[in-house]
């Protein structure tokens, strides 16, 4: 299928999303005070906080309709519906590009939403970088899939521990419980991936992966913590040790 056709198909979906979004935006905007008083001030329409949002909503709605019409006229809508009916039940092979995209999203989302707020920042960066670099730098699809699955499973377990409250309970017993768990997890990853790298004959790439994963936080954390005086999101066991060392030297 041509790129243009795929684009028109996605235009059909986005036009519907845009129309629904603009309707929501308009409903929310009309709910803002237009002529009623707010905070003791009598409103008039031209000073209302909803003035520009209504303008935006109307324009987005109109452009959404234009996009919808264009996608119908150029056959994008029909092509999408036909393809969905034809391929709806068929087994689809996931392409390497899609696997890469999923890996990137898992790595980024787990890093930002799950790990950074709860685990020592040094360990968060090391864990993220090692997984991210090794997955892509090794240039081996089978390894990428297996590592990606294992990493995702690990993050899922961590998420369950957080949601269930077990994370809080365990950390209240010993403040750095999960820092220790993550440190062990990183070491297990390094040793396991090393064995795979030796088997694949890419020891040099493994060396680059773990060195960069350690060197980057080793450089960034002191720069931000001691030079720029930025308090890091979570200062756990490793950063505590760095603080002790820094202030002892200072």
């Amino acid at each position: 299928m041509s790129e243009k056709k795929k684009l028109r198909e996605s235009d059909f979906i986005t036009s519907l999303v845009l129309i629904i979004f603009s309707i929501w935006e308009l409903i929310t905007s009309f709910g803002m005070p237009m002529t009623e008083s707010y905070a003791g001030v009598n409103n008039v329409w031209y000073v209302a906080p909803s003035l520009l949002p209504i303008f935006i909503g109307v324009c987005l709605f109109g452009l959404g309709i234009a996009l919808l019409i264009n996608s119908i006229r150029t056959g994008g809508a029909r092509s999408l519906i036909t393809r969905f009916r034809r391929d709806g039940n068929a087994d689809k092979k996931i392409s390497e590009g899609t696997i890469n995209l999923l890996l990137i999203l898992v790595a980024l989302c787990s890093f930002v939403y799950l790990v950074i707020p709860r685990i020592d920042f040094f360990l968060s960066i090391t864990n993220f970088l090692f997984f991210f670099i090794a997955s892509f730098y090794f240039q081996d699809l089978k390894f990428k899939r297996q590592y990606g699955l294992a990493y995702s499973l690990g993050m899922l377990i961590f998420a369950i521990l957080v949601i269930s409250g077990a994370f809080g309970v365990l950390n209240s017993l010993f403040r750095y419980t999960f820092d220790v768990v993550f440190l062990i997890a990183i070491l297990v990853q390094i040793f396991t991936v090393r064995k795979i790298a030796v088997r694949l004959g890419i020891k040099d790439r493994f060396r680059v992966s773990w060195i960069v994963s350690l060197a980057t936080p080793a450089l960034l954390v002191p720069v931000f913590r001691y030079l720029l005086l930025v308090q890091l999101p979570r200062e756990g066991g490793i950063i505590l040790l760095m603080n002790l060392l820094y202030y002892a030297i200072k």
Partner: protein
Amino acid sequence: MIFNQLMIFGNELLHMLSSPVNILILFGSVLMGIIFGALPGLTATLGVALLTTLTYGMDQGMALTALLGVYVGGVYGGSYSAILINIPGTAAAAATALDGYPLALKGEGGRALGLTTTASAIGTFIGMFFVVTLSPVISQLALNFTSFEFFLLALFGIIISGTLTSQDLVFKGWISGLIGLFLAMIGRDLLQSYPRFTMGLINLDGGLDVVPVLLGAFGIPQIIQVLKEDNESSEAQSIGKVFPDFRTIAKNIPHIVRSALIGVGIGAVPGIGEDIAGWVSYGAAKNSSKHPETFGKGEVVAVISTETANNACIGGAMIPLLSLGVPGSPPAAMLLGALMLHGVQPGPMLSIDHPTFILQITAILLLASAAMWICGIYLSKQVIKILRIPTQVFMPIIAVLCVIGSYALGMRIFNLYLMLPIGILAYTLTEMEYPIAPLVIGVILGPMADSSLRRALMVSEGSFMPIFQRPVALTLLIIILITIFSQTKFMKMFFESISKLFKKKPAA
């Protein structure tokens, strides 16, 4: 008066040159910019965004030096990978690759780099000249602007940026701009403090911080795109000695002047930027050439023209930024955010609040262009080694820098929570050929558009008549309407039929 200005300019230059720390920061930031520009997937905008966080605690002068240094270096740096591996490091260097790479294949990579370095330095210098001459003039005019003019200016910036940067349907650019405007509406409004679209989240009351939004919009999509394709890095061509071919430069002065004017002109139009300047200049050089068939096969005029234009665009983008507070390009939009963080509000009042600011910027641009030339001629071989770093290694590092950059400014984890969804939204929009520059312009200009519109209507008591009574406002409105309606099918057919009337009929 001019003598006075020259004295102040000279003082600023001397002040900067007399501080070794300033020189170090200048060269360091230019080099960092060159590296950012050279590495495919990284952009000058991302470099400025990341440096905004690092320079937050610095003195204003030093911070400006660093930010402008990385901007100038970043725009120029794209030519390295364009010439050596046929992959432009930045969109601004895309046109450079067409003739730069064939030159490298012929063994003239060093000469090509020397030409781009010198052309870029000249372009920056000419752009700087226009900043210092035009910005005060436009600022003076803008002092007469009322809120209607500012609202229409913001709208014009979004519409023109959307129209000119959209590669697919033109209204995709407008949709992108309106999404940016919507994002700017989130938070308590400036006039009545009413919470808009905050969904009850206290963290959204203050609105969206500019730096995480820009890092998300420019950094995350690049990371996803580069790693999703997951290609092995290409082998760079060897370059031999990099030397400034002054004789060739001297022979092409008319092209340089034309390209610089194109670059400044395009830079002055809000939201467009260096990549369009490069292409337009390339097209102009090809059309004016006696041998257009040589373009695409290693024509030095092409390389000189594109690089002069994209660096002159820096100065062009600074003109509306400093005089009106409207950024002329995405890196300038990031610079606007950085300036506001340092307590400088660009706009018509800039010359009054900070009388020597424009001259300070001019001095920094001059020194940055000199530093860029020195780094380009003498350090290029070292920079080229950086091109050997695999993308699979440095892109994750960039992801970490984006994360820490978003967090460090306000020390708010919520900024990270915002940066990622905005990045994923920007990636999705980019995949569907929506331009991101209008979205960024919308986010930056949204607060100005909102408060200006409501203030204007407050003064006119709900009447839009002042728009028709004020020449600048009316002109802006007409331009906006022409820009919109000229894209409709009816108007396109109308213009086509008009142009057919003027075409000569072939002889029977």
